[in-house]
Structure formats: structure tokens, C-alpha cells
């Protein structure tokens, strides 16, 4: 099946690519927004085994309508279990949750994410919402996938504030010493997939019919052509899109 990805909005394209990445995982720590949408899409298509875990304590829900808060009625509805946040974060720290999805206002070359301030911490241009659970997930989850709309202003060489720690040669060394997992391994935009290397992000693959110029436009990192052919999408993911109302 030939998929015309340009038919879909940028956020849907991110969810489509991310859904494929969730195959083989049993439990997923998700936040509201594109992460939640991507996980729902995966569960409806390529990974029915995936248990969605929200930091509010809801486990096993499949919210098909727009949710504003991780504690929204739509998240509680249809859950197999509602426990407390301590339990969910404890499971995270104990390495009992397989994979996590994060987004942020800024991302840098080594996958550091910023959701705290634009500008200086004490004298910011924009004071944002802060970590929430993002720092915790970035420190603790064994497999971390980052989802970012391709908005060049949000891609920087070094984030103004590293709310959620990244990876790459130096950070990985510190993570090892602290017995923490490796950090972000995959970055998904609405045009391409990137993977983490010792020296930062590498362009892994692009959506069919997107050019290298499009996939890297405005990104401040020096990137080489993709190391792999076009991203392949299981047709069931596309079919499942219809079930999600967002």
C-alpha cells in the first residue's frame, strides 16, 4: 500500500511514525497530547499488547477523544486500573515500564529537552510549565522516544535549560555511573526519524516523498543523508487513524 503522508497533519504523521516504534513493548509511560495519541494508535494497530500508563495513575485506558489533563475523565474512563502517581513513578524507577514518549518546547543535539524557561532561569524570556514528570521519565525509562513537530525554533544546539537529560557520549558516561538507562534513543518529527549516536542525532530515515532538505530544514545540527531507506508504515496504523478523534 502506497501511503501519501502529506494527506495527514504534522501531528498525525508523528503519531504514525511513533506507533511503529512501539512494536514489541508491553507498557508505555505516556503524557497528554501527541505521546498519548501515538500510543493509542499503536495499541489499535501494530501493538495491541501495549498497556498505556499515565502519571495520574490510570493504566490500560485507550482515550479516543481529546484529553486536556493526564487526570481527565477520558483517561480514567476505560482504565483497567486506577492507582496513585507514587505507584506509577515507582514502577518507572524500578524499571518496570518499557518505553516512554516525551515532547518539549526545545530539543538539542544530544536530546536534552527544555520545558522550563526560554532564556535564563532567573531572568527568562518565557517562563514555562516546568518538568512535570518529564525529567523523571527522561532519567528513568529504559527506552525513550522523543516526539517533536518540525518547528525549527524548537530545535537548538544547546537547550536554554536541560529539564530532561539527554544522551550521547558524555551524558551516557554519567548515566552509566549513576545506573541510569541510556536516555533518548529515537527522535521523531513529522518528516523523519533520527537516532542517537555518541555525537548526537543522526538522520535515520524519512517519510516517503519527503526530501532531505525538508527533513532537515532549519535544524541547527550538522546532519548527513539518512542511513536507511524510507520509513515503512504498517497499513493497519493508517486504518486505525480513523478511530481516534483528535
Amino acid at each position, binding site marked *: 500500500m502506497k501511503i501519501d503522508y502529506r494527506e495527514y497533519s504534522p501531528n498525525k504523521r508523528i503519531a504514525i511514525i511513533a506507533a511503529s516504534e512501539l512494536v514489541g513493548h508491553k507498557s508505555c509511560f505516556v503524557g497528554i*497530547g501527541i505521546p498519548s495519541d501515538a500510543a493509542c494508535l499503536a495499541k489499535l494497530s501494530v501493538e495491541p499488547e501495549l498497556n498505556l500508563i499515565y502519571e495520574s495513575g490510570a493504566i490500560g485506558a485507550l482515550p479516543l477523544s481529546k484529553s486536556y489533563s493526564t*487526570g481527565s475523565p477520558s483517561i480514567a474512563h476505560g482504565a483497567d486500573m486506577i492507582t496513585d*502517581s507514587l505507584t506509577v*513513578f515507582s514502577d518507572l524507577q524500578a524499571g518496570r515500564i518499557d518505553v516512554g514518549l516525551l515532547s518539549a518546547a526545545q530539543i538539542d543535539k544530544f536530546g536534552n529537552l527544555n520545558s522550563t524557561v526560554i532564556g535564563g532561569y532567573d531572568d527568562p524570556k518565557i517562563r514555562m510549565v516546568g*518538568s512535570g514528570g518529564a525529567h523523571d521519565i527522561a532519567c528513568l525509562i529504559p527506552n525513550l522516544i522523543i516526539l517533536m513537530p518540525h518547528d525549527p525554533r524548537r530545535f537548538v544546539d544547546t537547550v536554554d535549560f*536541560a529539564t530532561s537529560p539527554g544522551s550521547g557520549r558524555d551524558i551516557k558516561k554519567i548515566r552509566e555511573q549513576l545506573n*541510569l538507562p541510556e536516555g533518548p534513543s529515537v527522535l521523531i518529527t513529522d518528516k523523519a526519524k533520527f537516532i542517537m549516536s555518541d555525537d548526537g542525532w543522526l538522520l535515520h530515515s524519512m517519510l516517503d516523498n519527503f526530501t532531505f532538505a525538508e527533513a532537515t530544514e532549519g535544524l541547527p545540527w550538522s546532519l548527513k543523508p539518512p542511513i536507511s531507506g524510507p520509513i515503512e508504515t504498517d497499513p493497519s496504523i493508517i486504518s486505525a487513524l480513523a478511530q481516534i478523534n483528535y
Partner: protein
Amino acid sequence: MIDKTSTVQHAIKNNVNAGDTIFIGGFGHLIPFYLSHELIRQKIVDLTICRSGADILFDQLIASEIVKKIIFGYVGNPTVGLSHSFSRAYKKKSIEIEEWTNQSIIMRLHAARMGVSFVPSKILQIGDKPSNIAYLKQITCPYTGHKFSAIPALKPDIALIHAQCADKYGNVQMWGIDGDTIEGALASDKIIVSVEKIISNSKIKESPEKTVIPSHRVSNIIELPWGAYPSYVSGYYSRDDDHYIEYDATSRDEDKLSSYLKNWVHDVRNIKEYKKIIGNTKIKELEEGLCGVKNED
């Protein structure tokens, strides 16, 4: 057993002091709007307010200039955007902050709840977050030699929470999403609880598993139906997402926000008036919009 039912005025007046550290319950669900608004009406100042993920109730308390400091993991208007009053206060340096993460706030409360002065954690050791907290210390496990951050206990003076029901003695029942509400309440020295409905003790005893706070820990119980609006209560009413969305525009503008606070807080004399301002159309819509989270009451 002592009857602990009270009015919102007396409960706040008799239990909260200027300068107190207050844990405010509710994680998307069960946010104690009406009960906490009483802090504004009574102008109880110099407060430190804390919780993991804070939404527009924190924004309103900050805008009302009764908050000296916030201790938080997140403060915003979920999905919609920023907490504009917080941003303004932060930039004006009219508010102190202690900025953690959701997990670390919960672990801070958990340490207090367990009666110890710290717990070890793997978080807050890398990135720029540890530098947020100048006094944060590390600790080494005496068995494994592994390094952990030492998460210090956070023991609030008082917790304000909202729940589905309680008996008049203070046995509190709650279901649906909790987040860190119970953790924060049990960590605190005093607990004030507003509920949708006061029920009999024999009803409580029919399902003791639903009780989340025992009577001897509770200072006062107040029946405040719709007291969690515009957040929601599983089994009673849904979340008013529109109210949250509109609040974004309102809170960007200080004049608009003043009118909002006058209308929704200062001029409201009792919970019936609060319900009146919400309006019958909205009430009907939210009662019907429960998304299947059924009323187990």
C-alpha cells in the same frame, strides 16, 4: 465520635494561619476550587502552596497575592498553555519558587508520610534540574555504593482536598484518579476535606476499601457539592474543558482576571451561588458528560 462537619468559613479560619505551608489536592480530578478560594476571600497571606502538577487554581491563588512561595513540579493550564499569573509573578520576582519534578514532589510527600526526613531516588542527578534546588544533597547506598539524590521530606501544615463523600466523623471516601492527593493529605499535619456529599457511617462501613483517610486524621468536613468545578468528580460531574480554555485568555489580561476573580471568588457567598454562576445549562451538560465514569455512590 466527634461531629467534624463545618462551614467553609469556619474550617479555613480555625485551621489555616498566615505563613502556613498548604498542600492542595486534586490531579486533574477533584481539585478543591471552592474550598481553596476561601483562602482568597479571607485574605490569608504569606502562604506556601505545594503539589506535584498544579493547574489554574494555583494561578488564581498567585494572582490574588496571598502566595509567598510555590513548591511544585509543574504549574500551567494542562494542554492549553502557561500559568500566566505565575509567569508574571516570577518575572516580577514577587514570588519565591522551589522547583522540583512531579516524581520528586510526590517522593517528598511520601517521605513525610512515612515519617522519615528523606528518601533516596535516582532522579535529580543529571541535567540542569538539580541546580534548581541549591540545597539538594546526594546520598550513597551503604549496601551497593550507588549514588542517589536525597529527596527531603515535605510535611505541609495543612492539606485542602476535595473528595466524593465522607461521614460526619471524617472518614473520607474517594475513587477515580487520585494522583498525589492522598499522599499529600496523609503527609500533612492537618487535613480539611470538602465533599460532594456527606453520607452515613454505616454507608462508609459497607465499602471500607473506598476510605482513603481515617477520621482521626481529619480536622473538618464540609459538604460542598460542585466544589471541584471546573475540574471534575468521578460519579458526579465532568470537567469543564471550555472553562480552562477560556481561562487562558482571561488570565493573560490582569484586568480581565480581576473581573473573573470578583465574579468567581470574591462575590460568591456560598456554594449555592457558585453553582448558580456555573449555570443550569452547564451543570446539565457536565452531569451528562461523565464519559461513563459511573456514580458509585
